[in-house]
């Protein structure tokens, strides 16, 4: 890339540029024939370390590429920092440690610290919208409430989970957004 192209790229860059999995799928995805039995619910599935988590699609505001993240001194360690999304300042959290996934919170200050497919899932919340860093977004899944079971008893991560749900071979761990960001 020439310097000029880089400049243009930088100028036109938006953390949420097209080419990302978009919530538009919802409209496009084929609706299952209504059998009158049970309506499936829609979730956004994403990966954290080697597990797949899901949150109700209604709680997702946006999915963005990892921008530069500014660390906030003296904040709880789950808070990676704040990002600037079109003029709005939003906190970004790493919930892996809370879910007892490998290795605790690593400092992430920008796109250079994460693999290319990493994304921030921006969720709507009563106590303020916030971003959750994920290792990648898989897409929207429709899950049947009847196939959803409560989280297994025990385990310190339990309070942050809303349940487990199966779809064919796959197991989705349903995350309670409000609790995990508390």
């Amino acid at each position, binding site marked *: 890339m020439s310097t000029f192209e880089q400049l243009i790229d930088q100028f036109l860059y938006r953390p949420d540029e097209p080419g990302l999995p978009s919530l538009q799928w919802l409209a496009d995805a084929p609706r299952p024939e209504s059998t009158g039995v049970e309506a499936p619910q829609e979730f956004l599935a994403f990966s954290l370390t080697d597990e797949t988590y899901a949150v109700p699609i209604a709680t997702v505001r946006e999915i963005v590429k990892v921008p530069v993240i500014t660390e906030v001194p003296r904040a709880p360690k789950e808070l990676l920092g704040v990002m600037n999304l079109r*003029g709005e300042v939003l906190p970004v959290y790493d919930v892996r440690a809370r879910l007892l996934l490998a290795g605790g919170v690593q400092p992430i200050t920008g796109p250079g610290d994460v693999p290319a497919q990493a994304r921030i899932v921006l969720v709507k919340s009563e106590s303020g919208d916030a971003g959750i860093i994920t290792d990648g977004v898989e897409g929207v899944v429709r899950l049947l409430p009847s196939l959803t079971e409560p989280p297994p008893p025990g385990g310190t991560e339990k309070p942050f989970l809303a349940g487990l749900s199966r779809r064919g071979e796959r197991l989705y761990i349903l995350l309670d957004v409000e609790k995990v960001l508390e």
Partner: protein
Amino acid sequence: MTERRPVAEFVAEATEIVEGLSRELLGLDERRGEEPDPERLNAIFRAAHSLKGLASLFGHDRIARLAHVLEDALDALRLGKVAADDALIDAFIDGVDVLSGLLAMASRGETDGPAAERALALAQHIETLVAPAPEKPPALHELGVDKAVLNVLTEYEEHRLRENVKKGVALYMVRAVFSLEDFDQKLTALNAALKPLAEVVSTLPSAQASDEARIAFDLLVACRQPAADLEAVIRPFGATHALLSASVAPRPSAPVPVPVTAGPTAEVSLKSLSQTVRVDIARLDRLMAAVGDLLLTRTNIKRFAEGARAAGGGLHPMWAQELSREARALERKLDDLQKGILEVRMVPLGQVFDRLARLVRRLLRESGKEIDFEISGGDVELDKLIVEELSDPLMHLLRNAIDHGIEAPDKRASKGKPRRGRIRLRAANSGNHVVIEVGDDGAGMDDDRIRDEAVSRGLLTTKKAADLQRTDLLNLVFLPGFSTRRQVSELSGRGVGLDVVKTNLGRLSGLIDIVSERGQGTTFVLTLPLTLAIIRALVVQSAGRTYAVPMSSVLEIVAVRPSELRTVEHRQMLSVRGQTVPFVRLSQLFKLPETPVDLHYVVLVGLAQHRLGIAVDHLLGQQDVVTKPLSARLRDVPGLAGATDLGDRRAVLVLDVPALVSEIVRPQASP
């Protein structure tokens, strides 16, 4: 919405009227003993009248009733039925006070309070003051004015006529004929031209118009100058004049015909006379935020344009040039826009000064001290929000000056000082700041009393109190509850005054300095930023991280070698021109990796009376920024006011200087 809006609108409009009323009354107050200027009396009368109308429209009967009494009293005054004596002027000034109180009640939706009782008492008081002293005025036609003219005059016009005749001013009837198209401008111009030499007592539209496209006016004029001067002034308007009465002139040969049917109530336009709009400050905030975002886009475009010029690659040089030029034009226009919005938010400090002047007058009457109160700088402008926040602190400082500062007249005399004390309230611009001073030439702060008080309250040990530097000692008076008064009076003794001053000034990122000399007096110097909407920030770097520090809190920047720091009770201290200031490295405070340096850049910041030196690794420059709040989720993270964007789409944290100062300095100030 339907409930609240009318109240807010009523209060806003009524407050404006009361402020105008207050301004004119103060003018009257300053010229006590002189005959009041009729224009001023009319202005006051009109204000009371509009307030009455407005209040009854919105169903605020108490305000309407008081306004009505004021209106009647003013009417009596301008008709010369009563004299503008001290008692009446004092009552009027009280009236403004009570009206403000009633408005405050209305805005809070309260129906009962002390203001309501005062309103009733005051209304009765004013009524007794203006109770008519019947005295038959001489009939005007006896004074030599034609009866036909008298028939159509209002009571006020008759009074003005009588006043003029009494003074021996010659009366003329000026006849002017104007085209229907522009008669209003012409008539206004004629009035203006007459003003320097004559009083226009009445303007009567004449039935005697010579043709359909024209209209004739008869102006009843009392002219203080020779007839030739009058002639010279009215001739350009094609007007003629006839003498009606004069102490030294013959009666007019031919009486000027005056219509008996058409009264002086020419058709009034319903168009509002006011050229102003009232705007909710929140709307301006939103506009300002939009401008803030545009400023960022501007920065980006500018950088892009510069880069495009330098890099060249693929882009026609003409394009790059065009882009730079447009970027510069955009920048200029945005600067104008930003300035424009800031200007709209600015209001003169006079708005609070007027209110304070009323308060001081009342306190002075009650205190029994002899004090001259001087105000200057009422035209200095500040952001509306700041001006409102200032009114309480200034009130407390003035109360203190009256109560603790100025001594009783005899005591002053015994010290060789003039019996009359002096209190000054001054404002002046100083660069990006406004400096407001409240000064008295009284007793000065009493170091010993303050020290004793602090020890007896257990704030300090006797030993520590003795070691305290004078500035630190004086700063004790800002502590909540601190007072050298043993008895709580209406004026002092609760120790809340200076706590309010400190808290409000802190909120406004303002600074307070005390200059006090025993026996000479005390001056509180308040330094305030012009606006809070867009702030100028100092961009600094510490441990590789970038932060913005609001310039309004930055006093100065000094470079200090680590060896120059002293340690006092486990705290690092720095000496700036003889004053010892706590020192902290930002990297240490923020628990960032610290590296040793040869030189600290110390940003000296202040909050109210406290000072703090914050050391950073690099100074990167200054920039105008709009601070965005941090998420409510981060409310518990200390020391940050928000985040901003310096033009590279990163979030840069803005330090909360007041919070940092309290964090570092407070633990030491309290026991």
